[in-house]
């Protein structure tokens, strides 16, 4: 007696069925490649090049614009640091919107990577009593000071620690990045971040085509999709090309400073050595590379 319902035949049939389903559905292998795309860190040079080429074609179709997607790795001998002069910031929010345009953040639903908090001078740095909603005719307002908060690029980042799929990691130049294709949208990292620096695409991101920045980095400001987390990358597309981040260049009071912590002659090192410096939530041992200082 031949048993036709053997395990072997079941498996055989299953695989046949899958294969024929695939063949019938007319899916291109590209779709599967995309579905099976590996974590960015494990991709070979060739695979990266292919993915980037496909992305550029996809963006061209979707937005009708030529994109330049970079996967430029870190520059040897760099560890990026940032300093912000609390005695100068006037809370004008120019940085917030320069960042939005540079990094293709969704306009609606709105995502801002930088949040400028207004704090009372009498209370000092006090998050529970701060507000981001201040809207007077002119800034700075008397009796208040301003603390812009964005990703603090921690040396000991809790967001990286909690990611269940390793979709976010710290690069050798100190920038914590996200592989948007690998992110599953669980938002553990947002819960872990003590600075509220990570933002979730609850809806399909919406950027006016005319305002799209087409100079993008794979791990930074390329257009995101619904369901992924994003955050400040020190403008990875700019900083790795030797340029200052967009928020540094827009700041009308020159409160924002950026440079290489490993270079003893850099502005950032001068600040660390000569100014009174503080970091936010020091007690959490996140060790930010984003320093606040008093220039006067």
């Amino acid at each position: 007696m031949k048993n036709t319902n053997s395990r072997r035949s079941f498996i055989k049939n299953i695989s046949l069925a899958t294969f024929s389903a695939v063949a019938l559905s007319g899916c291109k292998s590209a779709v599967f490649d995309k579905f099976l795309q590996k974590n960015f860190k494990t991709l070979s040079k060739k695979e990266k090049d292919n993915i980037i080429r496909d992305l550029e074609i996809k963006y061209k179709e979707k937005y009708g614009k030529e994109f330049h997607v970079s996967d430029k790795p870190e520059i040897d001998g760099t560890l990026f640091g940032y300093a912000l002069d609390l005695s100068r910031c006037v809370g004008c929010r120019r940085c917030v919107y320069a960042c939005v345009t540079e990094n293709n953040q969704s306009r609606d639903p709105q995502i801002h990577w930088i949040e400028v908090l207004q704090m009372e001078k009498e209370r000092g740095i006090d998050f529970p009593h701060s507000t981001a909603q201040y809207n007077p005719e002119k800034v700075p307002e008397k009796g208040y000071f301003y603390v812009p908060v964005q990703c603090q690029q921690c040396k000991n980042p809790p967001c990286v620690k909690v990611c269940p799929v390793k979709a976010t990691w710290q690069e050798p130049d100190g920038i914590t990045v996200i592989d948007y294709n690998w992110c599953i949208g669980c938002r553990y990292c947002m819960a872990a971040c003590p600075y509220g620096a990570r933002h979730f695409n609850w809806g399909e991101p919406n950027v006016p085509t005319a305002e799209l920045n087409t100079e993008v980095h794979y791990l930074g400001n390329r257009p995101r999709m619904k369901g992924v987390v994003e955050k400040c990358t020190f403008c990875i597309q700019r900083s790795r090309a030797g340029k200052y981040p967009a928020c540094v260049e827009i700041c009308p009071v020159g409160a924002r400073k950026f440079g290489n912590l490993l270079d003893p002659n850099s502005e950032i090192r001068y600040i660390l050595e000569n100014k009174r410096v503080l970091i936010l939530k020091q007690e959490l041992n996140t060790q930010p590379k984003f320093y606040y200082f008093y220039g006067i």
Partner: protein
Amino acid sequence: MKYNFYENMKVSLIMISLYIVLVSGCKNKESDNSVINKINPGKEDIISSEQSNDYAVEAPPFSDGIFPCTDCHKNLKPNPTRRVLKDWHDDISAMFNHDSENRWCLDCHDLKNRDSLRLASGKLLDFKESYKLCGQCHGEKYRDWKVGVHGKRSGEWNGKKEYLLCVSCHNPHSPKFKELVPELPPTRQEDIKFVQLSNTRKK
């Protein structure tokens, strides 16, 4: 015996390649250091304080038609008496707020050479180097500005930087930084609407 020979070859090959990797690893570290030096083209390239005008500064922001001053002043008799100007430069008199109790025009402008600034030492100074004049009193700010900590820099963090003159941000006659109109505050979280989400939730 033959088998052993090959085995030995294998082992020695592995040893050799290991050695190469180790050596090249060390070399990499060395070259890392040289890269660090390379990416800092040296502040000396940007800053050497004694030579004139080494800072890549933008041109001084003159009001339209005001420079060169000699256009008007060459026909005027210089008057060194301290006074409030009424017929000309009354706009500056009106706003002047830069230690105005103790200072007036000729503390910075030269009496004889109107197209020049004048240091306290009497040395004439081009308008393009006005930061030196400011630095006479504001030494600490001047030091910070030279290293890129006071004021805005643009350009490259590891290379060529653009400096702004003090007067690009501070009106020299009324240097206090002016108040700004802030950009819009962020949307409150409760005001962010998702059509699909809110529909399903309400049902």
